[in-house]
């Protein structure tokens, strides 16, 4: 009974191992990603970015190689090699003193920078990464175009001009509304203070000379109040900027 149970569990383990080997085997490859095309201007520098994904843990044996095939040639030459934690930059070829290693294998980044571009740098660069035991997989290629002037994408200037002017106009209108709102609030508080003062004066004068029954101060206060409300409502009706200039009343 025991032997049958163990043989049953043994066959189950075997099936599971076979299944995982068949299914997981295709994904046990290294994936390398670069741009398709990179543009650079003569004399400037360009970053050739290369990132990779490996199903294994990044060991110390990871190796990164950059190859270059000129546009007008069929040979592919090796220009950079990184192995055992040490970058080896090409010291004798066309990229002598122009290349710099800026990648970090533990961050899955294998980028290099090429300075002082020239028209002879036109061509295809290949990034090849191997991370033992994960060594299968496709390497990725990036084509470098060295131009006199990098062409700006269509629509950048268009969008910038439209966005800038619209933003400016909206800002001006909002500021105009804010100024008008604050000014109206100040007018309202001043008017309230004024009417409170007048009411106080009226009460005092009424108490003092209630026997004489003076009319003129009351009429004066009413006239003043009506004039200030009329001017406040007229200012409320204006639609925007520059109202003080136009209002000559």
């Amino acid at each position, binding site marked *: 009974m025991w032997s049958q149970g163990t043989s049953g569990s043994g066959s189950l383990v075997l099936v599971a191992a076979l299944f995982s080997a068949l299914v997981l085997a295709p994904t046990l490859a290294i994936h390398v990603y670069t741009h398709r095309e990179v543009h650079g201007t003569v004399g400037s520098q360009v970053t050739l970015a290369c990132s990779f994904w490996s199903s294994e843990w990044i060991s110390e044996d990871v190796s990164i190689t950059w190859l270059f095939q000129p546009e007008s040639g069929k040979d592919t030459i090796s220009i950079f090699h990184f192995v055992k934690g040490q970058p080896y930059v090409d010291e004798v070829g066309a990229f002598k003193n122009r290349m710099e290693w800026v990648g970090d294998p533990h961050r899955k980044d294998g980028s290099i920078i090429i300075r002082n571009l020239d028209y002879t740098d036109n061509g295809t660069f290949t990034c090849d990464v191997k991370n033992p035991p994960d060594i299968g997989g496709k390497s990725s290629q990036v084509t470098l175009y060295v131009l006199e002037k990098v*062409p*700006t994408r*269509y*629509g*950048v*200037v*268009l969008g910038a*001009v*439209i966005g800038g*002017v*619209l933003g400016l*106009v909206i800002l001006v*209108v909002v500021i105009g509304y804010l100024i008008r709102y604050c000014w109206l609030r100040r007018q309202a508080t001043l008017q309230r203070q004024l009417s409170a003062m007048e009411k106080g004066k009226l009460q005092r004068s009424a108490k003092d000379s209630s026997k004489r029954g003076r009319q003129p101060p009351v009429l004066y206060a009413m006239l003043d109040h009506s004039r200030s409300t009329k001017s406040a*409502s*007229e200012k*409320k*009706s*204006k*639609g*925007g*900027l*520059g*109202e003080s200039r*136009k209002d000559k009343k």
Partner: protein
Amino acid sequence: MLLLLLGIIVLHVAVLVLLFVSTIVSQWLIVNGRTADLWQNCSTLEVPSSFQCVTSSTNEWLQSVQAMMILSIIFSVLSLFWFFCQLFTLTKGGRFYITGFFQILAGLCVMSGAAIFTVRHTDWQPATSDTAFGFAYILAWVAFPLAIISGVIYVILRKRE
């Protein structure tokens, strides 16, 4: 009073129509049979006889002219919308400041777009002896003073009734 209102609205709509036609129609430059425009260059081929259009260059100055024309249309439409808003919400005696402001802005945009085109059209269309300006270009220049006049009328106008 109603006549004045109608006249102002007709003027505004005329400016808007001029701006639209000028921006869309492909007739800014005429170079012996070929027309060049803000958006595309069209030409009539002799053999076989067909009319072919190709998108214009991506020159920065051409893009700024396109941007100015689009902005002028946007501002004119906003101004019309605001005019109707203010017509019903403004109190008696008030002035249409924002409407006038946007309309004047539209006029300035058209002017700057047409001016940039006049100065810089040789960048994307080499000048030959029989390069002539098309009617869409002329419409843009006509729309500019009309838009300014319309905007100034809005600023001066006072709401009655």
